């Protein structure tokens, strides 16, 4: 067993884990943060996307022990003070989810997309950038709308924060 410590959703978290423990297992099994899902075993579906040090990664493809000291944000860490993140709100507003299983990964990928590509995202860009996240329910139509709205509102929220 190896001791590993991280900052997860702003809180210190540590555990003694088997060296082969994946980040997603550490989150789900050690920390009981079950919002991050496992939908495949080939790093294709994106249900497990979380942010590590501000960048989206597939947590099924990272060893927990390789992330000593990392700052991790999961879907549970997005809403602040009872207020949904604009991207979360956008998914509800646009019916961007049905069964909800792929949704945490979709939202984490979408936020990362905005962080990398800015808040003016056209449909083509959103569709290309969602290539690593599979949804079986929605046909993506409403996910694309959700991401576009979330991106715009992240910019608005960012501007409002800067003005404060």
């Amino acid at each position, binding site marked *: 067993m190896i001791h590993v410590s991280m900052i997860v959703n702003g809180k210190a978290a540590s555990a003694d884990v*088997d060296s*082969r423990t994946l980040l997603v297992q550490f989150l*789900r099994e050690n920390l009981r*943060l*079950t*919002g*991050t*899902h*496992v*939908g*495949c*075993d*080939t790093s*294709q*579906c994106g*249900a497990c996307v979380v942010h590590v040090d501000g960048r989206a990664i597939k947590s099924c493809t990272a060893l927990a022990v390789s992330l000593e000291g990392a700052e991790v944000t*999961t*879907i*549970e860490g*997005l*809403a602040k003070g009872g207020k*949904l993140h604009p991207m*979360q709100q956008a*998914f*509800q*507003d646009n*019916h961007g*989810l*049905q*069964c*909800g*299983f*792929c*949704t*945490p990964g979709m*939202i984490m990928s979408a936020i990362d997309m905005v962080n990398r590509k800015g808040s003016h995202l056209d*449909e083509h860009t*959103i*569709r*290309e950038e*969602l*290539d690593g*996240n*599979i*949804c*079986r*329910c*929605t*046909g*993506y*139509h*409403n*996910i*694309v709308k959700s991401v576009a709205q979330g991106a715009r509102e992240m910019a608005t929220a960012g501007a409002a924060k800067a003005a404060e």
Partner: protein
Amino acid sequence: MSATGIGASVKRTEDIRFITGKGHYTDDINRHGQAYAYFLRSPHAHATINKIDASAALKAPGVVAIFTGDDIAADKVGGLICGWMIHSKDGSPMKAGAHPALAQGKVRYVGDHVAVVIADTYAQAREAGEKIVVDYGVLPAATDTATTAKPGAPQVHDVAPNNTVYNWHIGDKAATDAAFAAAAHVTKLDLINNRLIPNAMEPRAAVGEYDSGTDALTLYTTSQNPHVARLVLSAFIGIAPEHKLRVIAPDVGGGFGSKIFIYAEETVCVWAAKKIDRPVKWTADRTEAFLSDAHGRDHVTHAELALDVGGKITGLRVHTIANLGAYLSTFSSSVPTYLYGLLLSGQYNIPAIYCEVDAVYTNTAPVDAYRGAGRPEATFVVERIVEIAARQLGRDPGEFRRANFVTSFPHQTPVILAYDAGNYGGALDKALALADYKGIGARKAASAAKGKLRGIGFSAYIEACGLAPSAAVGSLGAGVGLWESAEVRVNPIGTVEVLTGSHSHGQGHETTFAQLVSQRLGIPFENVSIVHGDTDKVQMGMGTYGSRSGAVGMSAVSKALDKIEAKAKKVAGHVLEASEQDIEFKDGKFTVKGTDKAIDFASVALQAYIAHKFNGQELEPGLKETAFWDPTNFTFPAGVHICELEIDPETGVTTIDRWTAVDDFGALINPMIVEGQVHGGVAQGIGQAMLEGAVYNGDGQLLTASFMDYCMPRADDLPSFRVETIETRCPSNPLGIKGCGEAGAIAAPPAVINAITDAVGHEDVAMPATAQVIWRAAQKAILKRAAE
């Protein structure tokens, strides 16, 4: 319309937990002291099991127990069942081979269950599984749908000679033969309906738990119908009597049919939990899902359409070979028969139809219902052959369809179903306008000028949903009734819980069912909660599939609400000191006719419980009612989808440029959710048409067993969709609902293939029409044109 009532696009209640990561899917559930199951699966498609040596595995770290088929048999646990009896045309019952939860003596497909290893951790169970030595006697495998019934093919089950489960038929053969004898034109078509793997994003999972104090079992599982699971596990498999078995299907991450069925894994987990007196958990990895979830479709079909001189359809003759895989899954036998043959009239007036279906075994995973289940296969036959007939006769495909549409209702088809209401021409008109069909010539020319090929394809589909009148399906061989139940519990402060046997795994029942209740009782939407998915809470239910939750499940709720209203009127009458007949109920208020005396719903609820104002011997206190709704007919959603696409003949890369859907789902509860259902269904239909296909090689190895190999539709494969509706109310249920869950998956495949074949100018395009398939088709067309 109120902001949260029927017809309003209310944002979903359930979304909040899903977008914040607070859902509770089966794999999120952990029970104290749980052990983990790993299933050792067959690497061979067909083999005898000569010996299983688990001695080394039993000594591996953390191993609690290892069980094989012998242990299951010794405990007298029954095999998995198929719940729909089909008779062959000679009257003989279908030939169902035994389906033990763990293989006994023989394995019949790659992924078949050989043993279960239970250990303290999943990693330990898996490692121990690799230490089990199985001596297999490998046999040749039957894997090909078209040839498995031919003499000399390897035999999957001894009880089914020539690998034939049944030879079923429907319709009038003599009348159909006569129609063909008199036909002015006959269109013929050979097609393959490609095999699909459902791939709900949440893999199947199960947690079995035993309470030795009460001798009761609990199974948490990824099910679309937990009560059916309990019934089958109790009455047929014999795990425990129903009152000692609780099945909970919590949040379920998509089903599409694949989570209807009662599989080996959950059976073994709940059985083993008692055996070792510890909770047992299993979660499929994606490869296990590919190997062992029931697959869909897999038909080989020859069809012929007879037409008179005026282009009226006079007959349809269909022969289909349907691959059911290695064992009969729970509802598999009904899919290529009553969910298929009965839909072959499509939206058309066809005087004579005759259909034969040979259902066959192969050494492949079981095949059962997948979104649409039989109806996509029927629609693909009808909409391809109708399109080809129109082309052969030089008729406009839209107008040719219109000329053959059913226009008066009710309409008795020659294949049992009686369509109750519809407006097929109206849907076509609207779709043609929205798709700018008039402009297609100019758009084709513009594409041609860029060196591209543009095509347009129609699909005028019909489905039979709202499954189903119990006596009717019973007469057709169903082992269960297909009613639904509801219980409406009004609390003393006027909030309401609705317990429904429908199960939501993405459909949004917590929102739509609450819309109905909120509107009917005139109470705030927030004051209603919907309870489902737990056999200890909901008395009984048949679950969610076949687009039945609205038409059947909500009808049961509506019926229970009628009873609530009737009882509440009695209470209100006592409180307002008026005759029950003089009480009116509207917008949440009970009033006495012709007076200003009034009391709101919440106050009546309180009065019902405190029971101070009436005689408790004459009128029972409380306000809680149950109802079972048994449909009187199937429902018949129908519509027209038009696909327009552009092909790059140099690469085969094809872009769907516009998708127009006009659907008639009857009355809509929540248009936003309905549109979402259409989007998802169309995406799966486009997936079938262009991307997805399960491939087994001749040895029975599944070559498409991961998301690297099986092409799931991704965001950049699909267009945005134009989805509109028309409405003819369903006359057979109180809400006028027809159902919307499967329409897209039913409508889309022929629309896509009709568009591709229109673009390339010949009919030789098979599903999945990948870029390579389309490139070949386009090159063939170019060569043909050059030769002319």
